[in-house]
């Protein structure tokens, strides 16, 4: 543990050294810790009937390094550890190798802005790895804003290439290779974002995205069960999918103490899923340093045409899934966050090998509760510590 802390401090010193001494923007480091647990009774691993119990511990560090007055580099590294009673059922023996897993991820992004032309552009690379897949991603973005900063438009393009190491359900391993046509997945996304200040206290933003996926879109260890066949089968989905989300946000600043953040999202895809989400967050500022962030989100969706409940698939159907994320349902998510950000920071420490100091400038804790129509319940607690290097 001491070695990890030492490595972390050395890396922060390394990033501090990358900064320009003429730069007056501080280096920012965000530590994010998250705990998530869920329980339900419709696991896709066991064909839509069985425990969905899962707990996930996640940690992430995001470092934002201003390279000069107009450009910055963002480096993020994250690690998840989860235990899952549902994925444990890939094998017939419980408490097997599939009962827990690690996932690692990284992201490197560069952003450059030109204050004279009011344009900015950037690129990023990312990657993640888990027991059964490796994913690589890259993207570009370009944005322009009006001289008074009241209007802003962004175009972004990104792509991901995933490689699966297919792990099939225990009883299907012998023949599973016949059932999939590839173990790669590709995702491309084009997004457009527009923001406008409508009035002094009212701000609107619109965003839309076109996402195209091809390759292995089913999950190799998800089972389905049939009404006209006694054994289990493998989840099968088409090898192409197009998604189209559209989102709108409206922010209204009411006095010095309230902000109303209303958001609405519409989603449709080629699996025939259509969904609508509406959310409201009302940050309440008690003072300049302390604010409370209650929020609520309602989601409703029509299910994919390939979805059937446990035991209702037909052996003659080419495609089928019992993943309840693709079913028809409504859900509620609610929670509250507390943010504390004193003007001169909370505490400070020195860094080795540099003249820089590390200051804890803000912290936020957030709790959320999620309930889905079919009985899935989940809780999330997250802690965000924001540091700056002076």
């Amino acid at each position, binding site marked *: 543990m001491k070695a990890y802390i030492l490595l972390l401090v050395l*890396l922060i010193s*390394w990033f501090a*050294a*990358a900064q*320009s001494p003429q730069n007056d923007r501080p280096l920012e480091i965000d530590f994010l810790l998250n705990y998530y647990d869920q329980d339900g009774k419709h696991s896709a691993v066991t064909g839509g009937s069985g425990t969905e119990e899962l707990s996930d511990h996640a940690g992430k560090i995001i470092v934002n*390094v201003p*390279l*000069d007055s107009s*450009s910055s*580099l963002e*480096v993020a590294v994250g690690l998840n550890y989860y235990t899952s009673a549902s994925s444990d059922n890939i*094998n*017939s*023996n419980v408490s*097997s*190798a599939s009962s827990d897993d*690690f996932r*690692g991820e*990284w992201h*490197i992004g*560069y952003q*450059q802005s030109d204050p004279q032309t009011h344009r900015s*552009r950037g*690129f990023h*690379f990312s*990657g993640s*790895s*888990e*027991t*059964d897949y*490796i994913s*690589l991603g*890259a993207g*570009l973005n370009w944005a322009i804003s009006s001289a008074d900063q009241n209007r802003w438009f962004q175009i972004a*393009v990104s*792509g991901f*290439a995933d*490689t699966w*190491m*297919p792990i099939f359900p*225990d*009883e299907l*391993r*012998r*023949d599973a*290779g*016949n059932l*999939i*046509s*590839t*173990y790669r997945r*590709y995702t*491309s996304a084009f997004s457009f974002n527009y923001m406008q200040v409508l009035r002094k206290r009212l701000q609107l933003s619109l965003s839309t995205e076109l996402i*195209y996926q091809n390759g292995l879109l089913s999950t190799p260890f998800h089972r389905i069960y049939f009404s006209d066949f006694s054994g289990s089968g493998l989840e099968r989905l088409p090898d192409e999918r197009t998604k189209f989300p559209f989102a709108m946000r409206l922010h209204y600043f009411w006095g010095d103490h309230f902000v109303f953040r209303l958001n609405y999202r519409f989603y449709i895809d080629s699996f025939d899923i259509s969904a609508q989400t509406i959310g409201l967050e009302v940050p309440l500022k008690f003072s300049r340093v302390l604010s409370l962030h209650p929020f609520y989100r309602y989601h409703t969706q029509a299910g994919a045409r390939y979805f059937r409940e446990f035991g209702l698939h037909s052996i003659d159907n080419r495609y089928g899934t019992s993943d309840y994320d693709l079913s028809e349902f409504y859900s509620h998510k609610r929670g509250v966050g507390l943010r504390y950000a004193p003007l001169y920071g909370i505490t400070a420490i020195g860094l080795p090998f540099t003249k820089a100091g590390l200051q804890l400038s803000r912290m936020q804790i957030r709790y959320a509760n999620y309930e889905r129509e079919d009985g899935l319940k989940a809780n999330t607690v997250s802690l965000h510590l924001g540091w700056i290097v002076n």
Partner: protein
Amino acid sequence: MFNVYRFCLIVFLCFSGSHSGFTQSIPQRPIQGFAIDVGSGFSSGWWLYNRGSADPDILNDQGWDRTSNSPFWHNSIGLLYRFRQVSLGVTLQYDLFLEDKMRAFDDRDAVYARYPIADNSVPFTKYGLQLEVVLLQKRRYTLSPMLQFGRFQLETDHPQANNFSDESFMVFGLTNEISWQRFSLVFRPQLSTFRIAHKETVFRNEGHSIYNFGLSLGMRWWPFSPKEGR
């Protein structure tokens, strides 16, 4: 079929090439000349043995054997020459795959079907070429996408080891470099892929793929670069 990834790559290269885009505003040149490059790191990944397919219309009907997702330990030494934005070099690497068994495609927890591939770990000796192109240069910091490719030898007890041929590897990485006069510290997220073919094949697509994904840390020494040559 329209290849989205080829299109994105072309757009990306146009956007970030040396005559336009990000690199146009490079205020200073990256360190030039020869460098000795050493590094070490960890990653995790797996070895997949594709037993192939008897039916040409089926991806795989003979099964995939695989290891668990296990750690790799990398060590490398190389010689690089950087001219303007491009670095070319040679690399010699020694990797250890910390895994000793493979799970057969029909392995079930109730009926184990696993076989050894090593006593403790599988060593790989890799040698090849390295190419880097500077994408971003800001004062001390340099960001360069990197490609390594070449051949390798391995020591393994895999049952097909005598049938191995055409062992080759590729490494895709993002080299992040911070320089002080003649020294650079380097950290690099990287994806490594290894391919092993069979001398004698029975089924279509028979062969081995090894993937790992992780982080390498290292340093570079530029002995002939001027101290104020940035």
